[in-house]
């Protein structure tokens, strides 16, 4: 499955790798690889190149699995998805210059979504740095604003420790991406220094538990609420706090809304679940957010796609904000009760501190009423042309609960989040904060390698799929059993939806009638291709794709007129979502 040392006889393979582990470090590059091994890295996603070659050479003798990607952007997305699914930093490699700049999108993406990831980039030899040498870019300068920290390695003796520190930092506290830039002379340079145990920098402090008194006050405010709601963000998943959340919500009978990155942190089939809120969230979640009087927000950064206009966000609510990153407190929404700490720890503290359950029977009933008033359905007058929602729903119905869903960015991403039923954490892999088209194809590769025993499906748009379609070659080479479903509307549909809604239907550069036949493209890559046009064929096509042992692509030609609802217009009021086109005019 992976490429490194040439195949050895089975009985000697183990011996060889044991030797490799014991062989002393002799170069900076070996120290880099040793640091990754020590830190528990498993997979590396990367592309070769001049400045990173010494590190690849050191990989030759290592047991680390290297997956050669077709484009560095894919390497960073695959590493990101690996990090989301496994919970441990995903690793990506690129050479200097264009290799490094190609990684940047994935790094920025990981940064926005707090996904654990470490990027190692080759750099021109130290003596050329600053001289505009061949394939030189200021990688540290370019990436600094989109990483937790970018390191420039300047010594062969310490480069391994730099990598160890970067790895530890990516995983610590609020997770996120780190980068180490590796000048070629540093990785080629001789050293006999073994990297030490990976630790975070001494200036990096993480507070795990919130102040007990603060917790007590917050618990009392929550217990006294008439209309309490829990808002569970991606941080709940990152902190492995999903079961703590479930216990807390069930014990105190508080309705739970997730953010979009928080999908899977609370089971959507639970009666307390209102699913997710925000621009395209459910009507009932948005009604509850708008009318709650006490919001327990955990591990969310109050992104504007969630809040809409801040002036109308949960306007009646006292806010209890739990976050491991103090800088998130009152950044966008003022927190009446800030609780800084790890989500799982603080939930446990809150659980113990609650004086009683809030008296909220009426409120829970109200939430159920909203569920029946604003059902998540779609219009199927005659079932043709094919409805994207139907494809997603049908797929959701036939797969196991732990199936992992990856997506690109656009309408298909919204349908995949709305019409799939998520019940487990780490099964929703999508690009939220950066909204990166092209995320899906490589993300599914990273997800599948992180969880080889789980089914992986990727819903993509035709526009998004085209952006990273070359990644199919990797899925084929690695024989990854992934089902790609292109919800094909021959358009960058989300843009077209906005043009129709807000630009008088002037569809500038949003229609793609020239896209290839994705089923045939898939076959050209060596994957299995299916073309899907009619509702009656949906289930059999899905089953055929699932049964195929390897990557398959379903080119699903959907109703090009279908739009995503509900919708809160950008900066709008969450309680005033549009359920259909006409509502947009009312708002």
């Amino acid at each position, binding site marked *: 499955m992976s490429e490194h040392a040439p195949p050895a006889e089975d009985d000697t393979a183990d011996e060889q790798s044991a030797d490799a582990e014991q062989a002393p470090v002799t170069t900076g590059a070996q120290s880099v690889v040793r640091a990754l091994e020590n830190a528990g890295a498993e997979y590396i996603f990367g592309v070769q190149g001049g400045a990173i070659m010494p590190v690849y050479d050191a990989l030759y003798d290592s047991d680390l699995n290297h997956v050669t990607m077709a484009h560095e952007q894919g390497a960073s997305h695959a590493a990101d998805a690996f990090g989301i699914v496994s919970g441990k930093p995903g690793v990506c490699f690129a050479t200097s210059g264009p290799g490094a700049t190609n990684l940047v999108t994935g790094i920025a993406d990981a940064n926005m979504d707090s996904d654990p990831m470490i990027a190692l980039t080759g750099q021109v030899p130290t003596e050329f740095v600053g001289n505009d040498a061949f394939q030189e870019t200021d990688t*540290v*300068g370019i990436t*600094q*604003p989109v990483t*937790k*920290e970018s390191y*420039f390695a300047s010594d062969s003796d310490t480069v391994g420790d730099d990598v160890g520190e970067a790895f530890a*930092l990516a995983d610590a506290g609020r997770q996120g991406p780190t980068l180490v830039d590796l000048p070629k002379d540093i990785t080629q340079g001789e050293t006999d220094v073994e990297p030490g145990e990976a630790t975070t*920098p001494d*200036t*990096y402090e993480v507070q795990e538990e919130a102040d007990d008194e603060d917790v007590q006050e917050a618990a009392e405010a929550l217990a006294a609420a008439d209309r309490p709601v829990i808002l569970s963000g991606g941080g709940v998943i990152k902190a492995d706090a999903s079961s703590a959340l479930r216990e807390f919500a069930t014990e105190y009978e508080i309705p739970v809304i997730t953010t979009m990155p928080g999908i899977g942190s609370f089971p959507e089939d639970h009666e307390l679940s209102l699913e997710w809120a925000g621009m395209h969230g459910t*009507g009932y979640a948005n*009604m509850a957010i*708008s*009318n709650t009087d006490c919001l327990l927000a955990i591990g969310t950064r*109050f992104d504007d796609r969630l809040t809409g206009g*801040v*002036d*109308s*966000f949960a*306007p*009646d*609510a*006292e806010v209890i904000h739990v976050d491991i*990153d*103090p*800088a998130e*407190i*009152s*950044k*966008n*929404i*003022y927190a*009446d009760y800030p609780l800084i700490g790890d989500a799982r720890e603080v939930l446990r503290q809150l659980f113990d501190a609650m004086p009683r359950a809030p008296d909220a029977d009426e409120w829970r009933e109200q939430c159920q009423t909203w569920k029946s*008033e*604003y*059902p*998540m*359905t*779609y*219009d199927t*007058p005659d079932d043709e042309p094919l409805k994207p929602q139907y494809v997603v729903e049908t797929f959701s119905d036939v797969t196991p609960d732990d199936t992992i869903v990856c997506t690109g960015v656009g309408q298909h991403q919204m349908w995949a989040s709305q019409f799939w039923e998520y019940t487990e954490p780490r099964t929703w892999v999508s690009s939220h904060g950066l909204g990166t088209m092209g995320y899906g194809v490589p993300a599914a590769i990273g997800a599948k390698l992180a969880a080889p025993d789980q089914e992986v499906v990727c819903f993509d748009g035709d526009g998004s799929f085209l952006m990273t379609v070359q990644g199919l070659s990797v899925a084929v080479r690695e024989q990854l059993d992934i089902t790609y479903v292109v919800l094909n509307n021959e358009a960058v549909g989300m843009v077209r939806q906005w043009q*129709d809604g807000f630009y008088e239907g002037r569809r500038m550069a949003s229609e793609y009638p020239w896209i290839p036949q994705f089923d045939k493209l898939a076959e050209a890559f060596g994957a299995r291709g299916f073309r899907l046009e009619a509702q009656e064929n949906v289930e059999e096509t899905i089953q055929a794709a699932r049964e195929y042992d390897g990557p398959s692509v379903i080119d699903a030609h959907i*109703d090009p*007129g*279908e*739009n995503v*609802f*509900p919708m809160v217009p950008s900066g709008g009021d969450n*309680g*005033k*979502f*549009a*359920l*259909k*086109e*006409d*509502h947009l005019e*009312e*708002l």
Partner: protein
Amino acid sequence: MTGGMPGPSPHDRMQPEGRRNSQGIRIDPEAEATHEPRQAVLSALVKHKPGVLSEVSALFSRRQFNIESLTVGPTVDADTARMTILIEEPEPGIDQAKKQLRKLVPVIEVTELDPTALRRELALIKVGGEKPDDVNAVAEMYDGQAVDASTESVTVEITGSKQKIDAAVEAFKQFDVQEVVRTGAAALERGPRTLNKHD
């Protein structure tokens, strides 16, 4: 365009009573006001390593903090440097700036200094050399001194508060100011308190 979803239309729905202001603060009797900007003097101890200045300044520009001056220099410890950062922001922004600064890996400590903290700026002002005595007289008024003189120019050094230096520069305009360089503020807490013991 196809259908949509069922449910009451936007204006037939239950509406909340409250509002928040643009800073995300609930508008209630206690916190009605939108915060006005004020000046804050932040003092940061940072690791003395390449790139740290750009990391800090990039943070301020990316987050759109309105920075007035930023000075940096070594401390008695060769491994640390100290920055004095003057920003003008509404309260929530100042709080954010501090927290975001603390998040940067090379930053060891951050504190906001008291409004009464010692604050000094240095300016070198080069003026025409025709009336050296008059220049000296004005310099003395601002506790400054001439530090270089030639037949064509006199350069005066002034230290003090920003207001004092603003006033001095204004006063020297009568002598044909040729060049001015100012450092921006460096600041330290009065009394025995130090940043190291502060937090």
